[in-house]
């Protein structure tokens, strides 16, 4: 059965509708929380815009700016205006740039999505084989090497690895070719220049994918070890099924539930959480936009981004649940 066909089953319909409805209070709760927190931070976008540069500016400018942005209205009016817009798909405009928030986010979301997908691919390519080998060769030198590799990945922040990669590229190219080289710092679409795009994004994908893979490797190893001790595995071995089939057909699929959870949550995190790594590679992604919007006191944009990330997490959880149902028939039929 394919993951898509699960959606056609009747119990899954009900389940999906229930989850979608539960998403509404989650998002409203997130909206109230972020609106309150943002307004508790001292500071004012208009003061920041004009006073922050240290130059002279007209005294009345800040009041004009506040009026323009609606900041002089009561807080509850501001909240309901924003929430009302949000539920009809109107995210409004960035208070800092005046551009449509959908445009501001759209440009960055493409890049973040691509990095998240590439990092996930890197992670899965590393984690599943290494975790599996580590489990089936438990307590051998191979297991120790894999464990060291994965613990190093967990211990090493991806932005730090990113810095090492950048400095390493600069140093090695300077010494080998006489001219320092770094990846492009200006994004090009993969549809316009696939090589240029890959040259820029492969490095952050490796830096984040390594840390991501370390978590998934350890999860794969421990889940597989648990499954390999199950009775049905012992039965399969007793029946003379070859080890390769025991692992691939019987053990691996059943050990994937926690691994899928980790991969799904990490993927959602990558969509908005690569704050420092994006800065290291000068990537114009959602994480950088998030930091910029908070430091600019751009309430409208920050609120939209929080809602987007909350939405991604909720949706990712639903996707994980669907994959659970595909992997484990007991969940599907319960």
């Amino acid at each position, binding site marked *: 059965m394919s993951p898509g066909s699960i959606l056609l089953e009747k119990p899954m319909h009900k389940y999906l509708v229930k989850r979608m409805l539960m998403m509404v209070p989650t998002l409203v709760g997130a909206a109230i929380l972020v609106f309150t927190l943002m307004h508790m*931070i001292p*500071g*004012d976008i208009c003061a920041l815009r004009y006073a*922050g540069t240290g*130059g002279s500016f007209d*005294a009345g400018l800040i009041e004009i700016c506040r009026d323009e942005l609606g900041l002089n209205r009561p807080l509850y009016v501001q909240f309901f205006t924003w929430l009302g817009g949000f539920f009809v798909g109107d995210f409004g405009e960035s208070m800092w740039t005046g551009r449509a928030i959908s445009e501001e986010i759209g440009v960055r979301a493409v890049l973040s999505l691509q990095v998240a997908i590439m990092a996930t691919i890197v992670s899965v390519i590393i984690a599943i084989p290494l975790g599996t080998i580590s489990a089936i060769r438990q307590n051998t030198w191979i297991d120790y090497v894999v464990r060291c590799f994965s613990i190093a990945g967990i211990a090493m922040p991806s932005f730090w690895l990113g810095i090492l990669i950048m400095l390493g590229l600069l140093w090695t190219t300077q010494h080998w070719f006489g001219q320092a080289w770094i990846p*492009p710092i*200006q994004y090009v679409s993969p549809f316009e220049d696939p090589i240029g795009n890959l040259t820029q994004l492969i490095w952050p994908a490796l830096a984040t994918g390594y840390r991501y893979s370390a978590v998934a490797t350890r999860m794969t190893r421990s889940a597989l070890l648990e499954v390999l001790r199950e009775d049905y595995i012992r039965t399969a071995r007793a029946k003379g099924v070859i080890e390769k089939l025991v692992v691939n057909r019987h053990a691996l699929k059943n050990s994937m539930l926690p691994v899928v959870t980790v991969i799904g949550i990490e993927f959602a995190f990558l969509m908005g959480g690569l704050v420092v790594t994006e800065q290291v590679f*000068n990537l114009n992604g959602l994480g950088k936009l998030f930091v910029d919007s908070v430091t600019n006191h751009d309430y409208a944009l920050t609120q939209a981004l929080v809602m987007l990330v909350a939405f991604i997490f909720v949706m990712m959880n639903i996707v994980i649940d669907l994959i659970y149902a595909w992997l484990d028939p007991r969940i599907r039929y319960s």
Partner: protein
Amino acid sequence: MQGIRAYAAAVVGVGMMLTTGAAIAETPKYGGHFTYVVPAKGPPSFDAHRETTYAVIHPVRPYYSTLLRVNPQNPADPADFVCDLCVGDVPKGTNDGKTFTFKLHEGVKFHDGTPLTSADVKATFDRIIFPPKGVSSARKSFYKMVESVDTPDASTVVFQLKYASTSFIPALAAPYNFVYSKAKLDVDQRWYEKNILGSGPFVFKEYQPGAFMTGEKNPDYYLKGLPYLDKITAIFANKESIQVQALRGNRASAQFRGFPPKTRDDLVRALGDKATVQETDWNCVLLATPNHTRKPFDDVRVRRALTLAVDRWGGSQYLSKIAIVKTVGGIVYPNHSLAATKEELQQMDGYGADLEASRAKARALLEEAGMDLSKTYIFNNRGVDQPYKIVGVWLIDQWRQIGLKFEQKVQPTGPFYATLRESGDFDVSIDFNCQSIVNPPIDTSKYLSSDVNPANYSRVVDRKLDGLYEDMLLEADPAKQRVKMRAYEKYVLHDQVTQMITLWWRRTTVHRSHFKGWKVSPSHYLGQALDTVWLDPDADK
């Protein structure tokens, strides 16, 4: 050994740039794609009339013309202005300095092909000086002397002033004064916030928010033979490490804001003669602002003690090695004719040659004022290293020398300004005054009473102070204005110590040596039209 040689070569290069003020004259080459990093997140809007940040000027200025500009061949001189859209020399005022007539270049076109006439210049300056309701003009107050802008014919613009003013021509040459199309403004006064349409040396092509902006050579540019470059790209990179790596990895040829001394040295060490360093005083100054509504800082004796304790001459020597500050000065940009000489400065508290005598006097003043030396006071600072936190630590140590204890409260920029503007929860705070065009009569408005200029966060209200400023501002004779500026400065820094000047900033730019024709100016807002710059690929060989 190679590193030492490269460093020595670059230092010689720096020395040459500093002493001659220019590289050896070379024949410009046409063509090439110039890429530069802008150390910012991106422009808030594209409308320079409204904005105050270089994040607009650096990427957007090449697409526009201005009526006047700082001479790109001699930007270090704060009073050397040349015509941009106007022809000939910068006009002298007639009618007792109250009428200025500008003749415009013939045949100038906006990038959409429509002609640029005096009507567009008038619409632009009317919007800046007399903004319609709902339109934000950040520097409206610079043009208080202007009565009207008239257009006797399609190629003539006349500014009629209420009174003669030395600050008028510098104000006109401000880099923010992009000339807009009247037709566009007539339809929507805010059209230029999200769109770019100018008559400058480059034609706008693409902007990706927060990432980059590109433009191509304007084949119909009215200054014949310019620009030299075929294409420009501004890449936004807020982190200094990325800017440095971009220069080292040749992903960008320049960063125009400036680097701290350590970064300059690192770049020079890495790039050797492929890096060119230019330095100058910067029209930015770091202030220490006492809160006049807080005891005991409402007492002039305490404020005088604070300024007397600071070793500016020594600080200049040591801090300039690690921070972007250097020159000792008063309230006026040090290289301007209105600035105080060293001898004049030394007449004021805190600038004397005998530091120990100054500090002894400071201790005596504190004792006389009954200052509680057991108490710890709050020093508000901005959470930015260069130069705020570095100078903040130094200041606290200077005050410790006279027995005063300060605790540094470092805050991100938003909360920092909320403290300065709204809560006032500080005893003394860092602040800064950073301007584009060097225009001291306007730049020094920062020190006016807080109810006159809310950008003075000391909360001082002193009508004598405002009177001295007004007197200086309205003086049309430069020699007399200089005398009046001294009186105003002495009142601010010595008599009342309403605020304290620490050190003036030092601007150090590093660019790849293949980038030619650009000269450093006293402001990172100037010299950004990019029409006179060019690339020399041979310099990389």
